[in-house]
C-alpha cells in the first residue's frame, strides 16, 4: 500500500460512501473514527520503512503514479497530515452538536483529501488544479439550500478559479527562470504572476471581499472549515514555492512584499471589523487578519526559521472552530447574527457567548489565551525591524479588539431583569467547555503544542530548520 492511497484515495472514496447514510450521527461517527485512524497512522506509521510483526511485514511506500505524474507523501509530511486530519476530527465531531447540513462531513472529507493531494502532487504546480477541484466541491457546502447563491459565494468561485491559470502559467515560466536565472525581465514577470495567483488564492488585499460576504450569507460552520482548510493548505503550497526556488527565497523584495501585504490585511481587516455589527462578517475579518499575521510570520522567518508561523497553526484552528461553532448555534436560533439582535445573549446562552468572545480575543492575541504567544513573537519580530509597522499592526488588532468589547457590551446588556439560564444542549456544553478550557490551557502552556508542530519544518528541505 502507498501513503497517497491511505491519506488521499481512501478518504475520498469514503467521502463518496458517506453520502449514502441518512443518519447524521452514523456519518459523523464513521468519519471521526476514520480520520482518527488516519491521524494515528500519520503519527505512528513510518513511510518507506518496513514494519515487522512476527512473520508479517508491512511497508507504506511514499509514491503513487497517476497518468505519468506522481503523488508523493514522505515521512516528513506525516506531522502535517496528522495536524490536518486531527483538526478535521474536531470539525466533524462538533458538527453533531449543531444542525449543520449532513453534507458537511462527506464534502469536508473529500475537500480535505483533495487538498492533501494538492500538497503531494509532483510537479507541485499541478496543485493549483487540485485546489480548484476542492473549490468546486466547496460550493454545495457553502450554499444555502433553497436560496440563490449569494455574492460572496460567486466571488469565492471567481477569485479562486482565477488563481489557477496564474499559478499554472507561472510554473511554465519558472522552468525558463531555472534555465536562465540572469534574465531579470523574466524573473519579474514570474514574480508578478505568482503574486497574483497567490493573492487570489489566499485572498490577499484587495481580493478578500468575498470572505466577509461569505461569512455573512453561508453557514458559519462550513465557512469556518473552508477558510481554515484553504488558507492552511494555500500557505503551505506557497511555502513550497519559496522552498524550491532559491532566487525567490533570496529576493530582497520578498520580505517587503510579504510584510506590506500582511500589514495591509491586518489594518484593513481590523478597521473594518471595528465598525462591523454582524458577527459572521466579524469572523471573516478575523480570518483576513490571521492570514495577514501568517504572511508576517513567514516574512520574519523566511531566512531564519518559520517557528512563529508553525506556532500560529494550533491556536488558529482552535479559535476558528470555537468561533464557528458558537456562531452556528446562534444562527440556528436567531434570524440574523446582527449584534443589535443579540442583546443580553450572555444571560440566555452564556457558554456560546463566552466561547464566541474568547475565540475573538484569542485571535486578537490577548494574554492568557491561545493566540498570545504566537502574536507576541510576531510583534517582537516586527518591532525589531520597523516600529511604524508594529504600530500599524497594533491598530489592526485594536480594531478586532474593539469589536470584541462591543460584542461583550451587547451580550451583557439587558433591557429588563431577565433570569439567567443556559439554553445550550449537553453536547453543545461539552464542546464549548472543551474549546474554552483548551484556549486557556494553550495560552498558559504554549509549549504543549510544540509536540504537535515541532516536526513540521521537516516538510521543507531548504528552509533553515
Amino acid at each position, binding site marked *: 500500500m502507498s501513503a497517497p492511497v491511505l491519506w488521499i484515495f481512501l478518504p475520498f472514496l469514503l467521502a463518496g460512501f458517506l453520502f449514502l447514510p441518512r443518519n447524521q450521527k452514523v456519518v459523523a461517527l464513521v468519519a471521526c473514527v476514520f480520520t482518527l485512524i488516519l491521524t494515528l497512522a500519520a503519527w505512528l506509521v513510518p513511510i518507506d520503512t518496513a514494519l515487522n510483526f512476527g512473520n508479517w511485514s508491512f511497508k507504506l511506500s511514499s509514491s503513487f503514479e497517476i497518468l*505519468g505524474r506522481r503523488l508523493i507523501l514522505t515521512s516528513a509530511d506525516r506531522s502535517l497530515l496528522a495536524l490536518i486530519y486531527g483538526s478535521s476530527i474536531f470539525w466533524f465531531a462538533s458538527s453533531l452538536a449543531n444542525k449543520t*447540513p449532513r453534507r458537511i462531513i462527506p464534502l469536508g472529507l473529500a475537500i480535505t483529501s483533495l487538498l492533501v493531494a494538492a500538497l503531494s502532487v509532483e510537479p507541485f504546480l499541478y496543485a493549483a*488544479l*487540485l485546489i*480548484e*477541484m476542492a473549490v*468546486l*466541491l466547496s460550493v454545495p457546502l457553502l450554499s444555502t439550500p433553497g436560496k440563490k*447563491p449569494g*455574492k460572496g459565494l460567486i466571488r469565492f468561485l471567481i477569485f479562486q478559479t482565477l488563481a489557477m491559470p496564474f499559478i499554472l502559467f507561472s510554473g511554465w515560466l519558472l522552468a525558463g527562470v531555472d534555465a536562465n536565472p540572469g534574465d531579470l525581465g523574466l524573473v519579474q514577470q514570474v514574480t508578478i504572476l505568482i503574486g497574483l495567483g497567490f493573492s487570489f488564492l489566499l485572498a490577499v488585499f484587495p481580493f478578500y471581499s468575498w470572505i466577509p460576504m461569505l461569512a455573512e450569507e453561508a453557514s458559519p460552520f462550513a465557512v469556518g472549515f473552508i477558510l481554515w482548510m484553504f488558507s492552511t493548505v494555500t500557505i503551505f503550497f506557497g511555502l513550497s514555492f519559496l522552498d524550491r526556488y532559491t532566487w525567490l527565497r533570496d529576493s530582497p523584495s520578498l520580505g517587503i512584499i510579504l510584510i506590506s501585504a500582511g500589514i495591509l490585511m491586518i489594518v484593513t481587516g481590523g478597521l473594518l471589523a471595528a465598525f462591523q455589527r454582524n458577527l459572521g462578517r466579524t469572523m471573516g475579518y478575523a480570518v483576513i487578519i490571521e492570514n495577514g499575521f501568517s504572511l508576517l510570520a513567514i516574512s520574519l522567518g523566511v531566512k531564519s526559521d518559520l517557528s512563529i508561523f508553525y506556532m500560529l497553526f494550533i491556536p488558529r484552528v482552535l479559535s476558528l472552530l470555537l468561533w464557528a461553532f458558537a456562531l452556528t448555534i446562534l444562527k440556528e436560533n436567531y434570524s440574523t447574527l446582527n449584534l443589535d439582535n443579540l442583546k443580553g445573549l450572555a444571560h440566555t446562552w452564556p457558554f456560546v457567548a463566552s466561547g464566541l468572545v474568547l475565540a475573538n480575543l484569542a485571535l486578537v492575541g490577548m494574554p492568557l489565551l491561545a493566540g498570545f504567544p504566537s502574536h507576541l513573537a510576531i510583534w517582537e519580530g516586527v518591532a525589531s525591524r520597523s516600529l511604524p509597522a508594529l504600530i500599524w499592526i497594533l491598530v489592526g488588532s485594536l480594531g478586532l479588539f474593539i469589536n470584541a468589547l462591543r460584542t461583550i457590551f451587547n451580550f451583557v446588556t439587558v433591557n429588563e431583569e431577565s433570569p439567567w439560564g443556559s439554553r445550550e444542549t449537553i453536547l453543545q456544553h461539552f464542546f464549548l467547555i472543551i474549546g474554552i478550557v483548551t484556549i486557556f490551557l494553550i495560552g498558559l502552556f504554549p509549549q504543549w503544542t510544540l509536540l504537535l508542530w515541532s516536526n513540521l519544518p521537516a516538510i521543507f528541505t531548504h528552509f533553515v530548520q
Partner: protein
Amino acid sequence: MISVLNWIALLAAMVTSIGLLLHQNWRWGVGLLAVQYLSIFWLVQTHWPVSMAAAKLVTGWMACVILGMANMNAETSGDTEASWPQGRLFRIFTAGIIVAATFALSLRASNWLGLGMPLTWTSLLLIGMGLLQLGITSRSFRVILGLLTILAGFEILYAAVESSVLVAALLSIVNLGLALTGAYFMNVTQDENS
C-alpha cells in the same frame, strides 16, 4: 491552408465570445459556447494530438449539455441584470475595446511565447471577454459562462506549453465541475430533499 483555418477559428472565437456577451437568452449562450469549443479544439490540436484535443472538445460540449439541461429544468425566474450598465451598445463598445487591446497585446505576446498570432490572439481575446463577462454580470449562469470562457482562453495558451495527460484530465474535470456548479446554482432554489 492550416494557417487559414487558424484564422477562421480565431474569427469563430471572436464572434461567439461577443455573442455570449450580447445574448441574454440561455439557448444562445449554450449554443455559442458549443461553437466556441469547436474553435478551441482546432487551435489546441495544432500543439496536441487530435485525440487529446478531441477530449477537450467533448468535455466542452458535455459542459454545454449540463448547462443546457440545468437551464431547461430550472424555474424561469425572469430576473434581469441588477447592475449598471445593461445596454447592448455598451457591451459592443467594451467588446470592441477588448478586441483592440488583445490584438495589441498579442502582437508582443506571440513573439514572447513563440506562438502563432491567431492562437495567441484567440487565447487573450477569450480571457479578456471572459473577464468582461464576469465584470458586468452577477447572474450565476453568466458567471459560469465567463469562467468557462476564461479557462478556454487559458487552455489554448497552456496547451502550447504543456502536453501532460494529467493536466488535460484535471482541466477537463475542472471544466465539467464548473458546468455542474452552474447547474447546481440554477437548481439550488428547489428543496434539497426533493
